[in-house]
């Protein structure tokens, strides 16, 4: 035993050294995630099982699923969830359709302005969502720049209702999410050898066929990453629906915030937060599985 241990000594030692390095590299991020993400989640989940006494506006220790039941039995709340999912899906599809051609051009261009294009794409991210939404309010309001210009040109009689509608929210979230989609797609398309597209052309595939048979399947990992990213961002959008949707328009993230701050109903707020997270994760996974199965067949 001792002999074998000695014989393998150096090997064991090196392995221990490696695992120490790995631990040292992983530890900071792991601790950060555990403290700042997992712990609040656990506490929030525990809160969501508590009871809320409206008269006293306070939380009472309990273990009940009443908050979850309340959400799913009240059409008011389920309608908000449905709206959120619908908007997130529409925004994600729109980002994909708008983003792919842009990402393709950016990935394939030989122009020396390529870096400028990339910077221009990222530039909107330098301005916070709330600030940007506030800007739009001045442009798209009934007396805003957009409507006054159209009226001045005589194209419309009365102002178009854009602000405080679902349209405004969808346009707003698309604008916020598009750079994420474009950048993700661009990096993936860039990694696809251009000659592969040309090979398809030379073998007789017109552009649409080449796209369907070659570019799309090869870009699929990036398409998945991009759609997941934009879908999650859209599901959890807060500032844009809050500012552009107006007081009557409801999505999930503002609802959670409202429960915590206005109603001080922490248990119900926690429950909604968890429902939002679960639905987002569930839909993302389902879409992934669906695409992968279709790809395999």
């Amino acid at each position: 035993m001792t002999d074998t241990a000695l014989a393998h000594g150096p090997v064991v030692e090196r392995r221990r050294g490696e695992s120490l390095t790995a631990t040292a590299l992983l530890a900071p991020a792991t601790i950060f995630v555990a403290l700042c993400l997992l712990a609040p989640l656990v506490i929030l989940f525990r809160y969501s099982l508590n009871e809320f006494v409206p008269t006293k506006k306070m939380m009472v220790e309990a273990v009940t699923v009443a908050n979850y039941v309340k959400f799913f039995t009240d059409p008011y709340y389920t309608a908000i969830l449905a709206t959120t999912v619908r908007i997130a899906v529409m925004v994600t599809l729109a980002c994909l359709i708008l983003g792919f051609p842009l990402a393709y051009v950016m990935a394939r261009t030989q122009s020396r302005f390529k870096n400028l294009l990339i910077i221009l794409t990222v530039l909107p991210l330098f301005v916070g969502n709330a600030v940007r939404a506030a800007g739009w309010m001045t442009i798209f309001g009934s007396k805003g720049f957009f409507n006054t210009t159209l009226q001045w040109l005589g194209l419309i009689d009365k102002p178009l209702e854009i602000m405080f509608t679902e349209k405004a929210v969808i346009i707003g979230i698309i604008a916020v999410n598009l750079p994420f989609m474009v950048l993700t797609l661009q990096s993936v398309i860039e990694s696809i050898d251009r000659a592969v597209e040309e090979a398809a052309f030379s073998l007789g595939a017109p552009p649409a066929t080449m796209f369907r048979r070659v570019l799309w399947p090869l870009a699929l990992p990036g398409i998945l990453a991009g759609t997941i990213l934009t879908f999650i961002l859209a599901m959890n959008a807060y500032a844009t629906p809050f500012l552009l949707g107006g007081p009557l328009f409801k999505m999930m993230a503002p609802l959670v915030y409202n429960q915590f701050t206005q109603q001080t109903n922490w248990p119900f707020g926690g429950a909604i937060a968890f429902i939002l997270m679960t639905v987002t994760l569930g839909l993302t996974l389902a879409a992934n599985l669906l695409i992968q199965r279709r790809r395999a067949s």
Partner: protein
Amino acid sequence: MARLDLHGLSKRYGDFHAVREVTLEIDDGEFLVLLGPSGCGKTTTLRMVAGFIEPSAGNVRLAGQDVTQLPPWKRNAGMVFQSYALFPHLTVAQNVAFGLEMRKLPRADINKRVDEALALVRLGGYGGRLPRQLSGGQQQRVALARALAIRPDVLLLDEPLSNLDAKLRQEVRVEIHELQHQLGLTTVMVTHDQEEALTMADRLVVMNEGSVRQVGTQRDLYERPADRFVAGFVGRSTFLEGAVEAPGRFRTDGGLALACSGSGSGAKSGRGVLALRPERLQVAPAPITGLDNGLPGTVEFVSYLGALIDIHVRLSPADRLVVQIANREGGFAPEVGQSVHVSWPASAGLVFTE
């Protein structure tokens, strides 16, 4: 299979002429190689034939039909790319079947032709693999099979061997050449490797700075290079600067009077260069009688290449030339600093006047 005609083919990018007025006639079943340094326009020419680049002027006729305005997917040209460009998400068989599916062939025919094409490149049984599971040489052969399966009018090869290691390259070179002859394929290959070009081509086209410098067989290019560029690019040459004194007489800037009777030596006067092939020269301790030129010099540098030895000899302050000798047992092997005599027949001297 078919003939391919390029007429006045040009490509300009702003003020930059990538390809100027290329006119070539490639016979049915001929293997033509476009040879030149990088940036000479050979790849641009090939890509105009494939349809990836639209020419600024001129036209491309394939099998008698003007295809200049046709997109690549409407030309029946099989292309093998430098990076092979296999579809990484498709199996070997699916890669080869791709072009046949585009031609809407019945499934049974497709399978039959895929098997044929893979057998042709000795990859039968590899149909189910993914490209990444194959070696570089095998991927190269899949790319070839994919291009051949569509029975193209012309096969286009874009530096097809440059990603293979040296040993494999020699094998694949012979394979492609044999396959091309066996199938009687009209083929255009682009390369910057002159050895590759010389071993594979029926006819070569030397290009530089967008223009065709010379078209001919290996022997034409080597024995009768059209200009100084070709003389330096195909094979090697030492160039001695100077001027023509009279037909057959060349005086270098270093003052050496040399007899020459190779191509271009009929010029009567004017500045120019005398080109000498290193292997046509002889080096010995004393002048060799019977040769038209014999000059004393000093060995300045010796480069040992194994089978061959390069000897750099200074003949005058302005003139230095390279002599290549075979590395033979007991042969004369001069050392640096040694005084020697370099001799050559007048026929070895080629003259290019300005």
